[in-house]
């Protein structure tokens, strides 16, 4: 686990220094918010309309910004064959995978927690239960990063990785996206955490299953 944290820290230090991925994720996410706030301004005059639109809108921004970021998860490792350098270290491939998942989650959370205040300002909207929303976002982002990191490693050496990764990733995310969007909707409608236990369970099971599977498969992904 210590080595996974070192890998994540290395990735985050590099990213915070260059801001190559973070900037594009942030800009994408903010532009989505702005376009929706302008184009739907008529519909968004009442809070109940926002309750219905916002869950989908937020998750569209999170997932597509996340896809931009996850595509680059292993791109930095291809430069100077760093991935081979990492594989030469006495580290389980599962530890490399875990480190990459942690750094992807951190980057996504930065973008998500900057997007939410912008959303609240642009839509003139107050989120009633922020702690519950944080739990849903954490779980949903975990599932996204678990699958995305594996697929990012799988497609890193393909010429069309920017196209191939979303094509493979988005269908696999459906089981986590549906409960995440439903749970977000319930939060915005004022339901407490007890009202969305089913959705939270579904997301948590997805996270555990895919994280465990991906850790087991990651070694084969790297050698392939």
């Amino acid at each position, binding site marked *: 686990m210590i080595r996974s944290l070192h890998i994540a820290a290395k990735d985050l230090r*590099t990213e915070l220094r260059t801001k190559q991925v973070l900037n594009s994720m942030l800009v994408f996410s903010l532009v989505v918010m702005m376009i929706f706030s302008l184009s739907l301004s008529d519909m968004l005059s009442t809070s109940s309309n926002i309750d219905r639109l916002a869950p989908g809108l937020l998750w569209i921004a999170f997932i597509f910004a996340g896809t931009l970021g996850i595509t680059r998860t292993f791109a*930095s490792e291809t*430069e100077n*064959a*760093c991935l081979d*350098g*990492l594989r*030469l270290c*006495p580290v389980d491939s599962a530890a490399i995978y875990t480190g990459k998942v942690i750094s992807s989650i951190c980057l996504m959370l930065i973008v998500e927690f900057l997007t939410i205040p912008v959303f609240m300002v642009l839509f003139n909207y107050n989120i009633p239960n922020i702690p519950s929303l944080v739990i849903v976002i954490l779980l949903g982002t975990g599932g996204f990063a678990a699958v995305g990191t594996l697929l990012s490693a799988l497609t890193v050496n393909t010429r069309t990785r920017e196209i191939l990764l979303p094509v493979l990733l988005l269908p696999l995310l459906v089981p986590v996206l549906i409960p995440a969007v439903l749970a977000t909707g319930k939060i915005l409608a004022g339901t407490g955490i007890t009202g969305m236990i089913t959705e939270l369970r579904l997301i948590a099971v997805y996270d555990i299953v895919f994280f465990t599977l991906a850790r087991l498969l990651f070694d084969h992904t790297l050698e392939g």
Partner: protein
Amino acid sequence: MGSIISTRGLTKRFTGHVALHDIDLNIEQGEFVIILGPNGAGKTTLLKILETLVRPSCGSVKIGGLELSRSAVEIRKMIGVISHESYLYNDLTVGENLYFYGKMYGLSQGELTVRIQFLLEQLHLEHRCMDRVSTLSRGMKQRLSIARSLIHGPDIILMDEPYTGLDLRSACDLEKILLENSKKATVLMVTHDIDRAFAMCDRVILLSDGKIAVDTRKNEIASVEELRNIYTTIFDGGT
């Protein structure tokens, strides 16, 4: 002295061709072995298998008494790899790269500080410790790559074309470090630079079409010219 590296019936097949065919090899502790051969002879594949990066199709490999198929992680603690690829992160500084790899090898903070300082001094890079790798010249990157591979004090050093892109000073530094380390470590070097390699080695292996064509001790070859003649006879049919 016992074999630190041994292979039995080592074979590697890729789709459409056999890169290594039934290789039996014993390398003694402390030996400096050079592996020569034309492109496509299987030199790099052999090295990649010993580096644990590629799985053999069949046969067994033992390094330091450990079976490669079962103890790859333990074996990696024993080996240091110098390649024409630097394995360095361009956006991290010289010091950060060494620190990161040192941590990956499980070195403590105290050990790392001493080791990084020692290696940077030995490779004349101490004044660039805080600079990003992307600002270094090719030769400096290669010297840093050598430091990276030696950060954990490996028992076995595997090298694939380590002289590629090196200027004279860097090549001399590498030679000096190799000679110092070869007293305590086993060195296996794949190279096309016959003159330089022959001067340092104890043993010469020539690979041809995935098989060992020649495996001889240096003292059985009179001079580098004779080695060059053997090489030419085998690979160019004496022309």
